[in-house]
C-alpha cells in the first residue's frame, strides 16, 4: 500500500504538488489522472524517494522509500520510457538493472519474453520506437517481481494492440494482489483499466473514488433537441415549455438544445403540445472524458486557444469574404470543384459535390467559420463539449484509444 499524507512539493515559488493525501490499495489498479503538468510525475518521484517533499510524507508499506528494506524487490517503476542509454542493448540495459537489484540474469530473459522484446534484445535501444521503449520500461519495472508497481504514462506511444496488452497486464497484476498505480492524462484509458481513480489538478486532489462511483456521479444522460434553424422563435418557445415542465435546458453552440431531467417521450409530447416541430431528438450520455474535462477545467496549466495567425495573413481587400473552411477537404472522397466554365457560372455546384459556397448538410445549416470541417458528412456528430462561458475546449475524442500513428512502430506490435 502506498500512503501519502499532506504531500507538498515546491520548486522556488512554483508549487508542483500541494497537500496531497491519498492511499493506493493492493489488489486494484489505481489510476492517477491529471492534465499535463499537474504534478503526477513529481508525486511518483516523491513516492520513489527521488525527490524530497517540501512538506508531508509518503510511505510504501509503512516505510519511506529510502528506508524500505530490499526496495527494488518490493517496488518496480516505469518513470520515463526514454530514460535509457541509447547505445546499450535492451538486454544489457535490463541486465545492469537486474544486477543493481541482485536479481539473477535469467529473470532478464524472462521479462524480455513477457513484454515481447526477445527479438530485439540484442539491439541498441537507440533505434527503438516510443512503444518499444515503453515495453522496455515495463520490463524493467517487472524485473524484481515486485508487490508494488508504479507506471507513469505507460501507454504513451503504444499502438492499439500494445494498449490492450498494458491494460490486461495491469489488471492481471492487480488480480494477483499487487498494488498497481498508473498515471495517465487519458480518462478514457483509465475508465477501462482502473478500479479506483485519484484525480489531481495543479497538484491538488480533485477526486479520490472508485471508477464506478465516478461514472455514476459524472455521466448524466441528456437529450439533444433541435428545432428548425429557420425559425428561432420556436427554439425560445420550446425552451420555456421544457423549463416549465421541470427540465434543464442548455443551449449548444450549433443551435441545438441539451435537455436533462425529462425523458425523451415527454420532450416529444411537450413539443407537440406547444406546436413546435423537431428536427432532432436524440438520447446522449456525457462521456467520462467530458466529466473529467469539467473537473480539471480550472486546473489546466497549458490551454490551447484558437490560432489567430496575427500578422501572418494577407489583409483581405475591402469587401472580400474571409475564406470559409471547405467541408470535407482533405478527406477521402472530396474533390476540388471544377474550374469556372468559360462565360458560365463560376461554381455550378454539381450534385453530390459540396462546393465552397454550398456546404449545406441535410439540415441546411451553413458551416460557420471555426466549426470543424467535416460538415455535411455527419450532422449527428457530437460537438465538442462547451462550457457556457464559451472557453475554448479541447475537442475530446471520447473513447478513442491513444494516438497510435507512429509509423516506425510496426515491429513492436508482434
Amino acid at each position, binding site marked *: 500500500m502506498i500512503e501519502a499524507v499532506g504531500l507538498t512539493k515546491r520548486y522556488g515559488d512554483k508549487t508542483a504538488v500541494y497537500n496531497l493525501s491519498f492511499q493506493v490499495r493492493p489488489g486494484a489498479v489505481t489510476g492517477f489522472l491529471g492534465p499535463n503538468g499537474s504534478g503526477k510525475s513529481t508525486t511518483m518521484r516523491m513516492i520513489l524517494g527521488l525527490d524530497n517533499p517540501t512538506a508531508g510524507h509518503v510511505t510504501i508499506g509503512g516505510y519511506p522509500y529510502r528506508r524500505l528494506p530490499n526496495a*527494488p524487490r518490493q517496488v518496480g517503476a516505469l518513470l520515463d520510457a526514454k530514460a535509457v542509454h541509447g*547505445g546499450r542493448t535492451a538486454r544489457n540495459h535490463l541486465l545492469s538493472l537486474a544486477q543493481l*537489484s541482485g536479481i539473477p540474469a535469467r529473470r532478464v530473459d524472462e521479462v524480455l519474453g513477457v513484454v515481447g522484446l526477445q527479438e530485439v534484445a540484442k539491439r541498441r535501444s537507440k533505434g527503438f520506437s516510443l512503444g518499444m521503449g515503453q515495453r522496455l520500461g515495463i520490463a524493467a519495472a517487472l524485473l524484481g517481481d515486485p508487490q508494488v508497481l508504479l507506471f507513469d504514462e505507460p501507454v504513451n506511444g503504444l499502438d492499439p494492440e500494445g494498449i490492450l496488452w498494458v491494460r490486461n497486464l495491469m489488471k492481471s497484476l492487480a488480480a494477483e494482489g499487487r498494488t498497481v498505480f498508473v498515471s495517465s492524462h487519458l480518462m478514457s484509458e483509465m475508465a477501462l483499466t482502473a478500479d479506483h481513480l485519484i484525480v489531481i489538478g495543479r497538484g491538488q486532489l480533485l477526486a479520490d473514488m472508485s471508477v464506478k462511483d465516478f461514472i455514476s456521479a459524472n455521466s448524466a444522460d441528456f437529450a439533444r433537441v433541435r428545432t428548425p434553424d429557420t425559425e428561432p422563435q420556436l427554439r425560445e418557445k420550446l425552451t420555456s415549455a421544457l423549463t416549465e415542465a421541470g427540465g434543464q435546458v442548455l443551449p449548444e453552440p450549433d443551435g441545438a438544445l441539451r435537455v436533462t431531467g425529462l425523458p425523451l417521450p415527454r420532450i416529444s409530447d411537450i413539443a407537440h403540445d406547444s406546436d413546435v416541430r423537431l428536427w432532432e431528438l436524440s438520447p446522449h450520455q456525457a462521456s467520462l472524458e467530458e466529466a473529467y474535462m469539467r473537473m480539471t477545467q480550472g486546473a489546466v496549466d497549458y490551454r490551447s486557444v484558437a490560432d489567430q495567425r496575427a500578422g501572418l495573413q494577407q489583409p483581405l481587400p475591402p469587401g472580400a469574404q474571409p475564406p470559409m473552411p471547405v467541408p470535407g477537404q482533405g478527406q477521402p472522397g472530396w474533390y476540388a470543384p471544377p474550374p469556372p466554365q468559360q462565360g458560365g457560372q463560376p461554381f455550378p455546384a454539381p450534385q453530390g459535390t459540396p462546393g465552397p459556397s454550398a456546404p449545406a448538410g441535410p439540415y441546411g445549416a451553413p458551416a460557420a467559420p471555426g466549426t470543424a470541417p467535416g460538415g455535411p458528412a455527419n450532422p449527428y456528430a457530437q460537438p465538442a463539449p462547451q462550457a457556457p462561458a464559451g472557453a475554448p475546449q479541447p475537442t475530446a475524442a471520447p473513447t478513442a484509444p491513444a494516438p497510435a500513428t507512429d509509423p516506425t512502430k510496426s515491429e513492436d506490435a508482434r
Partner: protein
Amino acid sequence: MSMAATQVVRSEWTKIRSVASTVWTLSLAVVVTVAFGMLISALAKNEFGSMDARGRLSFDPTFISFAGTGLGQLAMIVFGVLVVANEYSSGMIRTSLAAVPQRGTFLFSKIAVATALALVVGMATSFLAFYLGQAMLGDLKASIGDPGVLRAVIGGGLYMTLITMFSMGVAAMLRSPMLSLAVLMPFFFLVSNILANVSATEKIGRFLPDQAGSKIMQVVTPVDDDTPYGPWGGLGIMVLWVIASLVGGYVVLKRRDA
C-alpha cells in the same frame, strides 16, 4: 563490501562494458598518449645535438616520453565524464537510485569501477609510452632500472587514473556531460597551462591538479627549478583535488532531487 556495493559494482561493470564510448575513449587515450610521446621523443633526439649545456643538463628522457599525456588525458576526462553524466543525460539516474536508494553507495561503487578500469588502462598506457618513447630516443634513452624512473612510469599511470576520478567528481556536481566537458576540456588543455607558465600566476598555477600531479613523471629536475613540492608531494596535491571533487559530487547527489 556491503551487498549493495557488490551489486552496484557488477551492474556498473555491465554498464561500462556495454557502451561503445568506453572502448573509444580509452583506446583513444592509449593511442594519443603513446603516439604523441613517440613523436616528441623522436624530435627531441634530433634536437639534442643542437642543445646548449643547460638544456642537456635538464634533458629528461623519461618525462619526454610522457609528452603525450597532456593530450591523452583529455580522452580520459571524456571517459570519466560520460560514465557519471550519462546517468543524468539519459535519465537512468532515477532508475538507478530507485534500485539503490543509498546514494553514497551508488556513487562511490560506480566511481570505483570506472577508476579500476582507468587504472588498468592508465598503467598500460604509461608503460607503453615509456618503452616506445625510449625506443625513439636511441642512445639518449633512460632505463626502467635508473633511479626514479620506475616511480615516474607508475606515477604516469596514477596520474591518468586521478584525472579520471577528478572528472567524475566534477560531472557528479554539474550533472550534464556537455557542461562538464565544456568546463574540464579547456581548463586542462589551456587554462592550467597558461596559469602555470605565466610568471604572474605561476605560484598559484602550479598547485592546480594537473600541474602538481605531472611532477610525478619527472625524473631529472630542471636547472633552477623552484617548485616547492617533490614528485610525491605533487601527486598528493592532486589527490587532495580529487577528494574535494568527489566530496562535492557526493554532497550534490545526496542533497538534490534526482
